[in-house]
Protein backbone atom coordinates (compact mmCIF):
# COMPACT_ATOMS: atom_id res chain seq x y z
CA UNK A 1 0.00 0.00 0.00
CA UNK A 2 1.17 3.54 -0.63
CA UNK A 3 2.24 5.86 2.13
CA UNK A 4 -0.89 7.89 1.51
CA UNK A 5 -3.13 4.85 1.77
CA UNK A 6 -1.50 3.73 5.00
CA UNK A 7 -1.72 7.20 6.37
CA UNK A 8 -5.40 7.43 5.47
CA UNK A 9 -6.07 4.25 7.41
CA UNK A 10 -4.27 5.53 10.46
CA UNK A 11 -6.00 8.88 10.28
CA UNK A 12 -9.41 7.29 10.06
CA UNK A 13 -8.76 5.16 13.13
CA UNK A 14 -7.44 8.23 14.96
CA UNK A 15 -10.40 10.33 13.91
CA UNK A 16 -12.90 7.80 15.13
CA UNK A 17 -11.13 7.17 18.41
CA UNK A 18 -11.00 10.93 18.94
CA UNK A 19 -14.69 11.13 18.14
CA UNK A 20 -15.63 8.48 20.68
CA UNK A 21 -13.40 9.98 23.36
CA UNK A 22 -14.90 13.37 22.69
CA UNK A 23 -18.37 11.86 23.03
CA UNK A 24 -17.44 10.38 26.40
CA UNK A 25 -16.08 13.74 27.50
CA UNK A 26 -19.33 15.50 26.59
CA UNK A 27 -21.36 12.94 28.50
CA UNK A 28 -19.26 13.03 31.65
CA UNK A 29 -19.12 16.82 31.62
CA UNK A 30 -22.91 16.74 31.26
CA UNK A 31 -22.78 18.75 28.06
CA UNK A 32 -25.80 16.80 26.82
CA UNK A 33 -26.98 19.21 24.15
CA UNK A 34 -23.60 19.02 22.43
CA UNK A 35 -23.77 15.26 22.80
CA UNK A 36 -27.19 15.14 21.15
CA UNK A 37 -25.81 17.12 18.25
CA UNK A 38 -23.50 14.19 17.52
CA UNK A 39 -26.48 12.12 16.41
CA UNK A 40 -28.06 12.23 12.96
CA UNK A 41 -31.70 13.23 12.77
CA UNK A 42 -32.66 9.66 11.85
CA UNK A 43 -30.46 8.11 14.55
CA UNK A 44 -31.40 4.83 16.25
CA UNK A 45 -30.44 4.09 19.83
CA UNK A 46 -31.02 0.48 20.83
CA UNK A 47 -30.09 -1.56 23.89
CA UNK A 48 -31.60 -5.06 23.97
CA UNK A 49 -32.33 -7.13 27.07
CA UNK A 50 -30.02 -10.14 27.37
CA UNK A 51 -31.46 -13.56 28.18
CA UNK A 52 -29.93 -16.76 29.48
CA UNK A 53 -30.41 -19.09 26.54
CA UNK A 54 -29.00 -22.52 25.77
CA UNK A 55 -25.78 -22.28 23.81
CA UNK A 56 -27.58 -23.94 20.91
CA UNK A 57 -30.42 -21.40 20.87
CA UNK A 58 -28.56 -18.08 20.44
CA UNK A 59 -31.61 -16.53 18.77
CA UNK A 60 -33.25 -16.38 22.20
CA UNK A 61 -30.26 -14.57 23.67
CA UNK A 62 -31.42 -11.00 23.14
CA UNK A 63 -34.63 -9.08 22.54
CA UNK A 64 -35.38 -7.80 19.07
CA UNK A 65 -35.16 -4.21 17.93
CA UNK A 66 -38.49 -2.77 16.88
CA UNK A 67 -40.39 -5.80 18.09
CA UNK A 68 -39.76 -6.67 21.72
CA UNK A 69 -39.44 -4.69 24.89
CA UNK A 70 -35.83 -3.50 25.11
CA UNK A 71 -33.93 -1.31 27.57
CA UNK A 72 -33.73 1.37 24.89
CA UNK A 73 -35.23 1.31 21.39
CA UNK A 74 -35.67 4.87 20.27
CA UNK A 75 -34.74 7.75 18.01
CA UNK A 76 -33.44 11.25 18.49
CA UNK A 77 -36.76 12.65 19.65
CA UNK A 78 -36.88 10.49 22.76
CA UNK A 79 -33.17 11.08 23.39
CA UNK A 80 -33.87 14.80 23.27
CA UNK A 81 -36.60 14.47 25.88
CA UNK A 82 -34.20 12.64 28.17
CA UNK A 83 -31.76 15.52 27.87
CA UNK A 84 -34.52 18.06 28.44
CA UNK A 85 -35.55 16.16 31.57
CA UNK A 86 -32.09 16.39 33.10
CA UNK A 87 -32.19 20.13 32.48
CA UNK A 88 -35.45 20.67 34.36
CA UNK A 89 -33.51 20.66 37.64
CA UNK A 90 -36.26 18.52 39.18
CA UNK A 91 -35.21 15.20 37.69
CA UNK A 92 -34.57 13.83 41.16
CA UNK A 93 -32.74 10.72 40.02
CA UNK A 94 -29.97 13.04 38.77
CA UNK A 95 -30.19 15.61 41.55
CA UNK A 96 -27.48 15.89 42.74
CA UNK A 97 -25.91 14.90 39.43
CA UNK A 98 -24.24 11.50 39.22
CA UNK A 99 -20.49 11.34 38.79
CA UNK A 100 -20.03 9.24 35.65
CA UNK A 101 -16.98 8.03 33.79
CA UNK A 102 -17.18 6.41 30.35
CA UNK A 103 -14.07 4.39 29.63
CA UNK A 104 -13.93 3.48 25.94
CA UNK A 105 -11.59 0.76 24.65
CA UNK A 106 -11.12 -1.79 21.85
CA UNK A 107 -12.15 0.60 19.09
CA UNK A 108 -12.48 -1.41 15.86
CA UNK A 109 -13.49 -0.11 12.45
CA UNK A 110 -15.13 -3.21 11.07
CA UNK A 111 -16.34 -1.75 7.77
CA UNK A 112 -16.29 1.51 5.89
CA UNK A 113 -18.59 2.26 3.01
CA UNK A 114 -18.39 5.67 1.45
CA UNK A 115 -19.24 8.08 4.24
CA UNK A 116 -20.27 5.42 6.69
CA UNK A 117 -18.20 3.44 9.10
CA UNK A 118 -19.26 0.48 11.22
CA UNK A 119 -17.41 0.77 14.52
CA UNK A 120 -17.23 -1.54 17.49
CA UNK A 121 -16.02 -0.49 20.92
CA UNK A 122 -16.13 -1.62 24.55
CA UNK A 123 -17.25 0.51 27.45
CA UNK A 124 -16.97 0.53 31.18
CA UNK A 125 -19.38 3.01 32.68
CA UNK A 126 -18.72 3.92 36.29
CA UNK A 127 -21.39 5.80 38.19
CA UNK A 128 -21.06 7.11 41.72
CA UNK A 129 -23.58 9.40 43.36
CA UNK A 130 -24.62 10.97 46.65
CA UNK A 131 -22.58 9.23 49.36
CA UNK A 132 -21.54 5.70 48.47
CA UNK A 133 -23.94 4.60 45.71
CA UNK A 134 -21.81 2.99 43.01
CA UNK A 135 -22.60 1.17 39.78
CA UNK A 136 -20.42 -0.39 37.11
CA UNK A 137 -21.78 -1.31 33.69
CA UNK A 138 -19.62 -3.09 31.14
CA UNK A 139 -20.34 -4.14 27.57
CA UNK A 140 -19.98 -3.48 23.87
CA UNK A 141 -21.24 -0.87 21.45
CA UNK A 142 -21.77 -1.28 17.72
CA UNK A 143 -22.09 2.08 16.04
CA UNK A 144 -22.81 3.18 12.53
CA UNK A 145 -21.06 6.50 12.06
CA UNK A 146 -21.79 8.78 9.13
CA UNK A 147 -19.66 11.64 7.90
CA UNK A 148 -21.83 14.66 7.28
CA UNK A 149 -20.26 17.90 6.10
CA UNK A 150 -16.91 16.58 7.23
CA UNK A 151 -18.12 15.76 10.72
CA UNK A 152 -18.75 12.30 12.06
CA UNK A 153 -22.24 11.65 13.39
CA UNK A 154 -23.82 8.66 15.09
CA UNK A 155 -26.49 7.22 12.82
CA UNK A 156 -27.07 4.09 14.82
CA UNK A 157 -25.91 2.68 18.13
CA UNK A 158 -26.49 -0.79 19.49
CA UNK A 159 -25.49 -1.28 23.12
CA UNK A 160 -24.84 -4.78 24.32
CA UNK A 161 -24.76 -4.58 28.11
CA UNK A 162 -23.24 -7.69 29.66
CA UNK A 163 -26.03 -8.17 32.20
CA UNK A 164 -29.34 -9.99 32.11
CA UNK A 165 -31.03 -8.81 35.29
CA UNK A 166 -30.06 -5.15 35.29
CA UNK A 167 -27.94 -4.64 38.38
CA UNK A 168 -28.55 -0.89 38.67
CA UNK A 169 -31.74 0.78 39.85
CA UNK A 170 -32.13 3.06 36.86
CA UNK A 171 -30.57 4.16 33.58
CA UNK A 172 -30.52 7.92 33.95
CA UNK A 173 -27.33 8.23 31.93
CA UNK A 174 -26.37 7.50 28.34
CA UNK A 175 -23.96 4.81 27.17
Amino acid at each position, binding site marked *: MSVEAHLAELLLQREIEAFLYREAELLDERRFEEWLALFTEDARYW*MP*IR*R*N*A*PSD*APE*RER*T*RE*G*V*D*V*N*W*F*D*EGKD*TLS*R*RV*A*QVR*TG*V*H*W*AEEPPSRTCHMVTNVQIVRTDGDEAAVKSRFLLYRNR*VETETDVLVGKREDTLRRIAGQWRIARRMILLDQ*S*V*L*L*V*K*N*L*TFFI
Partner: protein
Amino acid sequence: MAETPKLDELVDVDAGTISREIFVNEEIYRQEQERIFARAWLLVGFESQIPQPGDFVASSMGEESVILCRDRAGAVHVFLNSCRHRGMKVCRYDEGNTREFLCPYHGWSYATDGTLVGVPHQKDAYGAQLDRSRWGLVEAPRMCRYKGTVWASWDPAAPPFLDYLGGYALYLDLLLDAWDGREGGAEAIGGVHKWLVPCNWKFPAENFSGDRYHGVSHRSVDMVGIGPSGKGRRDMQERNEARSLDVTFPDLGHSMIAFLRPPDAPLAPAYQDSPAVGEYFRYCEEERRRRRGAHWRLFGGPGTVFPNASPLARQPRTIAVWHPRGPHQTEVWRWYLVDADAPVAVKDFLRHYYIRYSGPAGLTEQDDMENWGYAHAASRGTVARRHPYNYEMGLGRATRGFEDHGLALPGRIADIVPGTASENNQRGFYTRWRQLMGAASWAELA
Protein backbone atom coordinates in the same frame (compact mmCIF):
# COMPACT_ATOMS: atom_id res chain seq x y z
CA MET B 1 -40.24 -8.38 66.98
CA ALA B 2 -42.52 -10.89 65.37
CA GLU B 3 -45.19 -11.54 68.00
CA THR B 4 -48.69 -10.33 67.29
CA PRO B 5 -48.88 -7.66 70.01
CA LYS B 6 -45.74 -6.03 68.74
CA LEU B 7 -47.16 -5.96 65.23
CA ASP B 8 -50.19 -4.11 66.54
CA GLU B 9 -47.97 -1.38 67.87
CA LEU B 10 -46.16 -1.20 64.56
CA VAL B 11 -49.16 -1.04 62.26
CA ASP B 12 -52.05 1.19 63.30
CA VAL B 13 -54.03 1.85 60.14
CA ASP B 14 -56.89 3.43 62.08
CA ALA B 15 -54.57 6.07 63.48
CA GLY B 16 -52.78 6.28 60.13
CA THR B 17 -49.32 5.46 61.45
CA ILE B 18 -47.01 2.60 60.46
CA SER B 19 -43.60 1.96 61.96
CA ARG B 20 -40.51 2.01 59.76
CA GLU B 21 -39.55 -1.28 61.40
CA ILE B 22 -41.75 -3.27 59.04
CA PHE B 23 -39.65 -2.04 56.13
CA VAL B 24 -36.18 -2.51 57.55
CA ASN B 25 -36.35 -5.15 60.27
CA GLU B 26 -34.70 -8.49 59.40
CA GLU B 27 -36.97 -10.58 61.62
CA ILE B 28 -40.15 -9.09 60.21
CA TYR B 29 -38.77 -9.75 56.75
CA ARG B 30 -38.13 -13.39 57.62
CA GLN B 31 -41.68 -13.71 58.90
CA GLU B 32 -43.01 -12.15 55.69
CA GLN B 33 -41.37 -14.94 53.73
CA GLU B 34 -43.17 -17.54 55.82
CA ARG B 35 -46.54 -15.90 56.27
CA ILE B 36 -46.98 -13.93 53.10
CA PHE B 37 -44.82 -15.21 50.24
CA ALA B 38 -45.05 -18.91 51.12
CA ARG B 39 -48.81 -18.56 51.43
CA ALA B 40 -50.35 -15.92 49.18
CA TRP B 41 -51.22 -16.20 45.49
CA LEU B 42 -48.35 -14.80 43.43
CA LEU B 43 -48.17 -13.87 39.75
CA VAL B 44 -45.86 -16.28 37.96
CA GLY B 45 -46.21 -15.26 34.31
CA PHE B 46 -48.25 -15.36 31.14
CA GLU B 47 -49.56 -18.33 29.21
CA SER B 48 -48.42 -16.59 26.05
CA GLN B 49 -44.85 -17.15 27.28
CA ILE B 50 -45.31 -20.92 27.01
CA PRO B 51 -47.56 -21.59 24.00
CA GLN B 52 -46.22 -25.03 23.08
CA PRO B 53 -45.92 -28.31 24.97
CA GLY B 54 -42.44 -28.41 26.51
CA ASP B 55 -42.14 -24.61 26.64
CA PHE B 56 -40.85 -23.21 29.89
CA VAL B 57 -39.80 -19.89 31.39
CA ALA B 58 -37.92 -19.24 34.58
CA SER B 59 -39.83 -17.13 37.06
CA SER B 60 -39.69 -16.24 40.73
CA MET B 61 -42.01 -16.62 43.72
CA GLY B 62 -40.84 -14.50 46.62
CA GLU B 63 -37.10 -15.09 46.89
CA GLU B 64 -37.15 -18.39 45.06
CA SER B 65 -36.62 -19.43 41.48
CA VAL B 66 -39.47 -21.38 39.91
CA ILE B 67 -40.16 -22.93 36.52
CA LEU B 68 -43.37 -22.12 34.67
CA CYS B 69 -43.81 -24.98 32.26
CA ARG B 70 -46.30 -26.52 29.87
CA ASP B 71 -45.98 -30.29 29.94
CA ARG B 72 -46.04 -32.52 26.89
CA ALA B 73 -49.76 -33.00 27.42
CA GLY B 74 -50.33 -29.26 27.46
CA ALA B 75 -50.94 -28.85 31.18
CA VAL B 76 -49.38 -25.89 32.96
CA HIS B 77 -47.20 -26.38 36.07
CA VAL B 78 -45.18 -24.27 38.47
CA PHE B 79 -42.15 -26.02 40.01
CA LEU B 80 -39.52 -25.05 42.55
CA ASN B 81 -36.35 -24.79 40.50
CA SER B 82 -34.27 -27.11 42.69
CA CYS B 83 -33.36 -30.75 42.42
CA ARG B 84 -34.70 -33.01 45.16
CA HIS B 85 -31.40 -34.87 45.47
CA ARG B 86 -28.94 -32.11 46.47
CA GLY B 87 -30.83 -29.01 45.49
CA MET B 88 -29.09 -28.07 42.23
CA LYS B 89 -30.96 -25.51 40.16
CA VAL B 90 -32.26 -27.79 37.43
CA CYS B 91 -33.06 -24.99 35.00
CA ARG B 92 -30.63 -22.12 34.52
CA TYR B 93 -32.18 -20.82 31.28
CA ASP B 94 -34.68 -17.97 31.14
CA GLU B 95 -36.80 -19.75 28.57
CA GLY B 96 -36.82 -22.62 26.14
CA ASN B 97 -38.50 -25.83 25.11
CA THR B 98 -37.48 -29.17 26.55
CA ARG B 99 -38.43 -32.81 26.99
CA GLU B 100 -37.05 -32.92 30.50
CA PHE B 101 -35.08 -31.04 33.09
CA LEU B 102 -31.75 -32.76 33.53
CA CYS B 103 -29.93 -31.98 36.76
CA PRO B 104 -26.30 -31.28 35.89
CA TYR B 105 -24.95 -32.49 39.22
CA HIS B 106 -25.85 -36.22 39.34
CA GLY B 107 -28.18 -36.51 36.41
CA TRP B 108 -31.58 -36.99 37.96
CA SER B 109 -34.06 -35.94 35.30
CA TYR B 110 -37.59 -34.67 35.63
CA ALA B 111 -40.32 -34.75 33.03
CA THR B 112 -42.09 -31.53 32.13
CA ASP B 113 -44.87 -32.60 34.48
CA GLY B 114 -42.35 -32.73 37.32
CA THR B 115 -42.13 -36.47 37.77
CA LEU B 116 -38.72 -37.90 38.47
CA VAL B 117 -38.17 -39.99 35.36
CA GLY B 118 -34.44 -40.56 35.29
CA VAL B 119 -32.20 -41.76 38.12
CA PRO B 120 -28.79 -42.99 36.95
CA HIS B 121 -28.07 -46.55 38.10
CA GLN B 122 -31.34 -46.61 40.00
CA LYS B 123 -31.49 -50.40 40.23
CA ASP B 124 -27.89 -50.97 41.22
CA ALA B 125 -27.52 -47.90 43.39
CA TYR B 126 -30.91 -47.57 45.06
CA GLY B 127 -32.56 -50.91 44.58
CA ALA B 128 -36.00 -50.68 46.09
CA GLN B 129 -34.90 -47.80 48.27
CA LEU B 130 -35.89 -44.79 46.25
CA ASP B 131 -39.62 -44.16 45.82
CA ARG B 132 -39.46 -41.92 42.75
CA SER B 133 -43.08 -40.88 43.14
CA ARG B 134 -42.11 -39.05 46.34
CA TRP B 135 -39.14 -37.23 44.81
CA GLY B 136 -40.47 -35.34 41.82
CA LEU B 137 -39.93 -31.59 41.48
CA VAL B 138 -41.69 -29.65 44.23
CA GLU B 139 -44.80 -28.33 42.54
CA ALA B 140 -46.81 -25.35 43.72
CA PRO B 141 -49.90 -27.13 45.11
CA ARG B 142 -52.15 -24.33 43.91
CA MET B 143 -52.02 -22.91 40.39
CA CYS B 144 -54.61 -20.87 38.52
CA ARG B 145 -54.79 -19.55 34.99
CA TYR B 146 -56.73 -16.32 34.70
CA LYS B 147 -57.23 -14.49 31.40
CA GLY B 148 -53.76 -15.33 30.16
CA THR B 149 -51.99 -14.83 33.46
CA VAL B 150 -50.71 -17.66 35.67
CA TRP B 151 -50.81 -17.47 39.45
CA ALA B 152 -49.64 -19.89 42.12
CA SER B 153 -49.48 -20.41 45.87
CA TRP B 154 -47.29 -22.69 48.00
CA ASP B 155 -50.06 -23.19 50.55
CA PRO B 156 -52.48 -26.07 49.90
CA ALA B 157 -54.93 -24.36 52.25
CA ALA B 158 -55.00 -21.11 50.30
CA PRO B 159 -58.49 -20.06 49.21
CA PRO B 160 -59.37 -20.54 45.53
CA PHE B 161 -57.79 -17.83 43.40
CA LEU B 162 -61.13 -16.31 42.46
CA ASP B 163 -62.05 -16.04 46.14
CA TYR B 164 -58.62 -14.57 46.78
CA LEU B 165 -59.30 -11.95 44.09
CA GLY B 166 -62.86 -11.47 45.26
CA GLY B 167 -64.53 -8.28 44.09
CA TYR B 168 -61.19 -7.07 42.82
CA ALA B 169 -61.55 -9.18 39.66
CA LEU B 170 -63.66 -6.39 38.19
CA TYR B 171 -60.65 -4.07 38.44
CA LEU B 172 -57.96 -6.53 37.43
CA ASP B 173 -60.02 -7.16 34.30
CA LEU B 174 -59.53 -3.52 33.35
CA LEU B 175 -55.96 -4.61 32.61
CA LEU B 176 -56.60 -8.06 31.19
CA ASP B 177 -59.69 -7.55 29.02
CA ALA B 178 -59.37 -6.13 25.54
CA TRP B 179 -60.08 -2.40 25.33
CA ASP B 180 -62.94 -3.12 22.95
CA GLY B 181 -64.73 -4.83 25.80
CA ARG B 182 -64.11 -8.46 24.98
CA GLU B 183 -63.03 -10.80 27.77
CA GLY B 184 -59.30 -11.36 28.00
CA GLY B 185 -57.46 -10.70 24.81
CA ALA B 186 -54.44 -8.99 26.31
CA GLU B 187 -50.98 -10.32 25.47
CA ALA B 188 -47.54 -9.61 26.85
CA ILE B 189 -45.03 -8.13 24.44
CA GLY B 190 -41.84 -10.20 24.20
CA GLY B 191 -39.12 -9.20 26.65
CA VAL B 192 -39.38 -8.82 30.40
CA HIS B 193 -37.75 -5.97 32.28
CA LYS B 194 -35.87 -7.31 35.30
CA TRP B 195 -33.85 -5.06 37.57
CA LEU B 196 -32.77 -4.46 41.16
CA VAL B 197 -33.91 -1.58 43.35
CA PRO B 198 -32.34 -0.87 46.77
CA CYS B 199 -35.54 -0.73 48.81
CA ASN B 200 -37.98 -2.97 50.63
CA TRP B 201 -40.57 -4.59 48.35
CA LYS B 202 -43.43 -2.74 50.07
CA PHE B 203 -42.34 0.68 48.84
CA PRO B 204 -43.32 -0.06 45.24
CA ALA B 205 -46.23 -2.31 46.28
CA GLU B 206 -47.89 0.45 48.32
CA ASN B 207 -46.98 3.11 45.77
CA PHE B 208 -48.76 1.23 43.00
CA SER B 209 -51.66 0.36 45.27
CA GLY B 210 -52.79 3.93 44.86
CA ASP B 211 -50.30 6.74 45.25
CA ARG B 212 -51.84 9.62 43.32
CA TYR B 213 -49.93 11.92 45.60
CA HIS B 214 -46.41 11.81 44.25
CA GLY B 215 -46.86 14.17 41.34
CA VAL B 216 -43.78 16.11 42.41
CA SER B 217 -41.73 12.98 41.74
CA HIS B 218 -42.68 13.22 38.10
CA ARG B 219 -42.77 16.94 37.61
CA SER B 220 -39.80 16.76 35.24
CA VAL B 221 -41.70 14.41 32.95
CA ASP B 222 -44.78 16.59 33.01
CA MET B 223 -42.56 19.47 31.91
CA VAL B 224 -40.89 17.50 29.14
CA GLY B 225 -43.86 15.52 27.88
CA ILE B 226 -43.71 11.87 26.91
CA GLY B 227 -47.42 11.08 26.66
CA PRO B 228 -49.17 9.54 23.64
CA SER B 229 -50.31 12.96 22.60
CA GLY B 230 -46.92 14.52 23.11
CA LYS B 231 -47.74 16.18 26.41
CA GLY B 232 -47.36 15.19 30.06
CA ARG B 233 -47.24 11.54 31.03
CA ARG B 234 -50.55 10.43 29.50
CA ASP B 235 -53.82 11.64 28.01
CA MET B 236 -55.57 13.44 30.83
CA GLN B 237 -58.93 14.54 29.50
CA GLU B 238 -60.75 11.29 30.13
CA ARG B 239 -59.33 11.26 33.65
CA ASN B 240 -60.21 14.87 34.28
CA GLU B 241 -63.81 14.35 33.23
CA ALA B 242 -64.15 11.25 35.39
CA ARG B 243 -64.78 10.68 39.08
CA SER B 244 -61.52 9.68 40.77
CA LEU B 245 -61.94 6.59 42.90
CA ASP B 246 -59.40 4.99 45.20
CA VAL B 247 -60.63 1.45 45.58
CA THR B 248 -59.38 -0.99 48.18
CA PHE B 249 -60.44 -4.32 49.67
CA PRO B 250 -58.92 -4.22 53.19
CA ASP B 251 -59.75 -7.86 53.92
CA LEU B 252 -58.13 -8.95 50.66
CA GLY B 253 -55.32 -6.40 50.44
CA HIS B 254 -55.95 -5.51 46.81
CA SER B 255 -56.34 -1.95 45.59
CA MET B 256 -56.58 0.16 42.44
CA ILE B 257 -56.86 3.73 41.34
CA ALA B 258 -59.97 3.79 39.15
CA PHE B 259 -61.87 6.35 37.12
CA LEU B 260 -65.56 6.52 36.39
CA ARG B 261 -66.60 8.61 33.43
CA PRO B 262 -69.97 10.41 33.21
CA PRO B 263 -72.73 8.37 31.53
CA ASP B 264 -72.89 10.84 28.73
CA ALA B 265 -69.20 11.53 28.29
CA PRO B 266 -68.18 11.88 24.65
CA LEU B 267 -65.03 10.19 23.43
CA ALA B 268 -62.05 12.05 24.83
CA PRO B 269 -59.25 12.94 22.46
CA ALA B 270 -56.22 10.68 22.96
CA TYR B 271 -53.20 9.21 21.20
CA GLN B 272 -53.01 12.30 19.08
CA ASP B 273 -49.42 11.63 18.12
CA SER B 274 -50.75 8.94 15.79
CA PRO B 275 -54.03 9.20 13.87
CA ALA B 276 -53.99 5.44 13.33
CA VAL B 277 -53.69 4.73 17.03
CA GLY B 278 -56.26 7.38 17.92
CA GLU B 279 -58.62 5.81 15.46
CA TYR B 280 -58.01 2.35 16.91
CA PHE B 281 -58.90 3.42 20.41
CA ARG B 282 -61.88 5.39 19.21
CA TYR B 283 -63.15 2.25 17.53
CA CYS B 284 -62.40 0.14 20.60
CA GLU B 285 -64.24 2.52 22.86
CA GLU B 286 -67.34 2.38 20.71
CA GLU B 287 -67.20 -1.39 20.83
CA ARG B 288 -66.59 -1.23 24.54
CA ARG B 289 -69.63 0.99 25.14
CA ARG B 290 -71.71 -1.40 23.08
CA ARG B 291 -70.50 -4.53 24.84
CA ARG B 292 -70.09 -3.40 28.40
CA GLY B 293 -73.21 -1.45 29.16
CA ALA B 294 -72.71 1.01 32.01
CA HIS B 295 -69.40 -0.60 32.82
CA TRP B 296 -67.80 1.00 29.79
CA ARG B 297 -67.49 4.07 32.01
CA LEU B 298 -64.95 2.43 34.30
CA PHE B 299 -61.23 2.41 33.61
CA GLY B 300 -58.25 1.81 35.78
CA GLY B 301 -54.87 3.13 36.73
CA PRO B 302 -52.22 1.57 38.94
CA GLY B 303 -53.11 -1.00 41.57
CA THR B 304 -51.72 -3.89 43.56
CA VAL B 305 -52.91 -7.47 43.87
CA PHE B 306 -51.76 -8.35 47.37
CA PRO B 307 -48.94 -8.78 48.06
CA ASN B 308 -46.69 -7.86 45.16
CA ALA B 309 -48.32 -7.91 41.72
CA SER B 310 -49.09 -4.45 40.40
CA PRO B 311 -51.24 -3.91 37.33
CA LEU B 312 -51.30 -0.54 35.62
CA ALA B 313 -54.47 -0.78 33.58
CA ARG B 314 -53.64 1.76 30.89
CA GLN B 315 -51.23 4.46 29.79
CA PRO B 316 -48.97 2.60 30.13
CA ARG B 317 -50.58 -0.86 30.31
CA THR B 318 -48.27 -3.06 32.32
CA ILE B 319 -48.02 -5.42 35.24
CA ALA B 320 -45.08 -5.58 37.63
CA VAL B 321 -44.04 -8.03 40.32
CA TRP B 322 -41.94 -6.83 43.27
CA HIS B 323 -39.82 -9.82 44.29
CA PRO B 324 -38.28 -9.49 47.74
CA ARG B 325 -34.48 -9.90 47.74
CA GLY B 326 -33.77 -9.36 51.40
CA PRO B 327 -35.31 -6.55 53.46
CA HIS B 328 -33.29 -3.93 51.64
CA GLN B 329 -33.57 -4.95 48.00
CA THR B 330 -36.29 -5.70 45.48
CA GLU B 331 -36.07 -7.32 42.07
CA VAL B 332 -38.68 -5.91 39.74
CA TRP B 333 -40.14 -7.92 36.86
CA ARG B 334 -42.27 -6.02 34.42
CA TRP B 335 -44.43 -7.19 31.54
CA TYR B 336 -46.00 -4.85 28.98
CA LEU B 337 -49.43 -5.55 27.55
CA VAL B 338 -51.31 -4.85 24.35
CA ASP B 339 -54.53 -6.14 22.83
CA ALA B 340 -53.51 -9.31 21.02
CA ASP B 341 -55.68 -8.28 18.06
CA ALA B 342 -54.42 -4.73 17.77
CA PRO B 343 -52.76 -3.72 14.47
CA VAL B 344 -48.97 -3.93 14.43
CA ALA B 345 -48.72 -0.15 14.13
CA VAL B 346 -50.73 0.29 17.33
CA LYS B 347 -48.65 -2.27 19.19
CA ASP B 348 -45.45 -0.60 18.05
CA PHE B 349 -46.67 2.87 19.02
CA LEU B 350 -47.61 1.60 22.48
CA ARG B 351 -44.34 -0.29 22.92
CA HIS B 352 -42.37 2.88 22.36
CA TYR B 353 -44.56 4.77 24.80
CA TYR B 354 -44.32 2.03 27.43
CA ILE B 355 -40.54 1.87 27.30
CA ARG B 356 -39.97 5.61 27.52
CA TYR B 357 -42.38 5.75 30.47
CA SER B 358 -41.60 2.63 32.48
CA GLY B 359 -38.79 0.63 33.93
CA PRO B 360 -35.23 1.65 34.75
CA ALA B 361 -34.88 3.61 31.51
CA GLY B 362 -38.37 5.08 31.74
CA LEU B 363 -38.34 8.83 32.20
CA THR B 364 -41.15 8.54 34.74
CA GLU B 365 -40.08 5.61 36.87
CA GLN B 366 -36.42 6.55 37.13
CA ASP B 367 -37.42 9.07 39.74
CA ASP B 368 -39.61 6.58 41.61
CA MET B 369 -36.61 4.32 42.05
CA GLU B 370 -34.56 7.21 43.38
CA ASN B 371 -37.25 8.05 45.92
CA TRP B 372 -37.92 4.48 47.04
CA GLY B 373 -34.21 3.80 47.45
CA TYR B 374 -33.39 6.84 49.57
CA ALA B 375 -36.65 6.70 51.52
CA HIS B 376 -35.69 3.17 52.51
CA ALA B 377 -32.09 4.06 53.32
CA ALA B 378 -33.12 7.05 55.44
CA SER B 379 -35.48 4.84 57.45
CA ARG B 380 -32.95 2.29 58.69
CA GLY B 381 -31.37 4.25 61.52
CA THR B 382 -32.00 3.85 65.23
CA VAL B 383 -33.60 7.26 65.61
CA ALA B 384 -35.49 7.14 62.31
CA ARG B 385 -37.12 3.87 63.38
CA ARG B 386 -38.66 5.66 66.34
CA HIS B 387 -40.73 7.85 64.01
CA PRO B 388 -43.57 6.13 62.16
CA TYR B 389 -44.67 7.01 58.64
CA ASN B 390 -47.84 9.03 58.18
CA TYR B 391 -50.84 7.41 56.48
CA GLU B 392 -53.51 9.87 57.58
CA MET B 393 -54.51 11.15 54.17
CA GLY B 394 -58.28 10.84 53.69
CA LEU B 395 -58.64 8.81 56.87
CA GLY B 396 -62.29 7.95 57.48
CA ARG B 397 -63.49 9.36 54.20
CA ALA B 398 -63.95 6.14 52.24
CA THR B 399 -67.28 4.35 51.84
CA ARG B 400 -68.54 0.92 50.90
CA GLY B 401 -71.53 0.52 48.59
CA PHE B 402 -70.41 3.16 46.14
CA GLU B 403 -72.94 3.91 43.42
CA ASP B 404 -73.11 6.39 40.57
CA HIS B 405 -76.07 6.72 38.18
CA GLY B 406 -77.13 3.24 39.16
CA LEU B 407 -73.68 1.71 38.67
CA ALA B 408 -72.54 0.05 41.89
CA LEU B 409 -68.86 -0.62 42.42
CA PRO B 410 -67.35 -3.07 44.93
CA GLY B 411 -64.71 -2.26 47.51
CA ARG B 412 -64.07 0.43 50.07
CA ILE B 413 -63.93 3.49 47.87
CA ALA B 414 -62.58 6.96 48.45
CA ASP B 415 -64.21 9.36 46.01
CA ILE B 416 -61.66 12.09 45.80
CA VAL B 417 -61.41 15.57 44.36
CA PRO B 418 -59.78 15.10 40.94
CA GLY B 419 -56.12 15.99 41.09
CA THR B 420 -55.88 15.26 44.78
CA ALA B 421 -55.23 12.03 46.62
CA SER B 422 -55.95 9.69 49.51
CA GLU B 423 -54.14 6.92 51.37
CA ASN B 424 -57.26 4.79 51.46
CA ASN B 425 -55.57 2.12 49.35
CA GLN B 426 -52.33 1.97 51.31
CA ARG B 427 -54.34 1.54 54.53
CA GLY B 428 -56.17 -1.31 52.84
CA PHE B 429 -52.88 -2.91 51.82
CA TYR B 430 -51.46 -2.81 55.35
CA THR B 431 -54.70 -3.99 56.91
CA ARG B 432 -54.32 -7.21 54.99
CA TRP B 433 -50.56 -7.35 55.58
CA ARG B 434 -51.26 -7.16 59.31
CA GLN B 435 -53.86 -9.94 59.08
CA LEU B 436 -51.58 -12.38 57.27
CA MET B 437 -48.56 -11.60 59.43
CA GLY B 438 -50.60 -12.27 62.54
CA ALA B 439 -52.32 -15.46 61.44
CA ALA B 440 -50.79 -18.90 61.88
CA SER B 441 -52.84 -20.33 59.01
CA TRP B 442 -55.40 -19.53 56.36
CA ALA B 443 -57.98 -21.15 58.60
CA GLU B 444 -57.38 -18.47 61.21
CA LEU B 445 -58.15 -15.86 58.59
CA ALA B 446 -61.40 -17.36 57.47
